[in-house]
């Protein structure tokens, strides 16, 4: 099993096979991350696509720690999209559209009311807290890595997480088990 580190090193040395392997390994992760922000599969894929393109075209030395850089690109792209959605006022009752055009997915989502409520509650958090929740809770990264991606101290990441959880607790109190 080749590690990401090894793949990135080979990619930097010009191996197109390495880029292909990176795409294979990273596309699902980036899709999943972007989807948590955007709630739309197609939009999430667009964001992943743009992020991988930037990896392909970015000056090799400019990307720092590659995995951090890739996550950061996705977070920034998602923020931009969410901001422009808000500006256009085109949010249908909340920023997250858990189900998109696919009626099967819409059914599945409707069946789990709790999932829908959670998605909405996360989407309604202030941007700074939402970013930490998505990266920590859903991308399953360490607080150290979350802090690096967001360029904040780890203590700040933790206090944002705490505040976010307190808000989510209030927001989701009717769903409590």
């Amino acid at each position, binding site marked *: 099993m080749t590690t990401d580190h090894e793949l990135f090193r080979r990619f930097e040395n010009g191996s197109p096979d390495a880029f292909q392997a990176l795409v294979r390994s990273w596309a699902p992760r980036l899709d*999943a991350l972007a989807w948590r922000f955007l709630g739309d*599969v197609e939009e999430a894929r667009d964001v992943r696509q743009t992020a991988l393109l930037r990896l392909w075209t970015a000056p090799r030395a400019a990307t720092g720690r590659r995995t951090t850089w890739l996550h950061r690109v996705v977070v920034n792209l998602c923020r931009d999209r969410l901001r422009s959605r808000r500006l256009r006022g085109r949010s249908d009752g909340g920023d997250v559209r858990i189900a998109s055009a*696919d009626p099967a997915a819409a059914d599945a989502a409707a069946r789990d009311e709790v999932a829908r409520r959670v998605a909405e509650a*996360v989407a309604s958090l202030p941007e700074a807290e939402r970013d930490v929740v998505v990266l920590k809770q859903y991308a399953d990264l360490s*607080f150290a890595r979350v802090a690096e991606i967001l360029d904040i101290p780890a203590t700040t990441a933790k206090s944002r997480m705490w505040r976010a*959880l307190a808000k*989510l607790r209030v927001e989701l109190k009717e769903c409590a088990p």
Partner: protein
Amino acid sequence: MTIDPRAPISCEDARALSVDLLYGELDRAEQPRLERHLESCAECRDQQAGHQDVRKLLDRWRPDPRIDEVSRNSRRTWWRVASVAAALFVGACLLGTRVSWQDGSVTFSFAATAAVEEQTDLAASFHRLIEAAHRESNDRLRSLHEQILIELEQSERENDAAGAALVRALERRLVRERREIGAMIGRLARAAMDESALTRNAFHRMGAPIAREARGDKR
């Protein structure tokens, strides 16, 4: 640094440790300090318990099942990235075309083609494809520019304000034109992406229709 497990900690510190505990990142050495705080602070204790429940609720939001499709289609994804890269690259070059109004004359400047490192056969053919598409698209824009220049001369406008207004109108036209070319290349990229068994040769062939469409040829 050694930690005195009996040293009291603030609520703020306890919250950071509590979040660590919640996500399995708590340093064993810190555990007694957190426990001692929770024993004596009802507020932090209550929140810790509440946060644990919230965490469980957050797990209920499962990813859309379609998110995993990518991994089963990774080969296609790679080609999709490559073909869209070509389209975006050309788009960026076109967007680099500028119109300016200076000293009574209109200038069109073309962005230089950024160099793509020729690392391998594949990268080289990719590069050639981009170059061809870029050249053809710019040719189309250039002929539009020439046409516009002729119109400008015919209009014999000497007034700067009128000239500037005309340039703005021309810019709008250019934007439309670029958008059209961009959309066309996007369509081709999407068509390429949908072709499930894209081979290296197919990738080469992709260059031809892009160039043809950029020239405005009808098949």
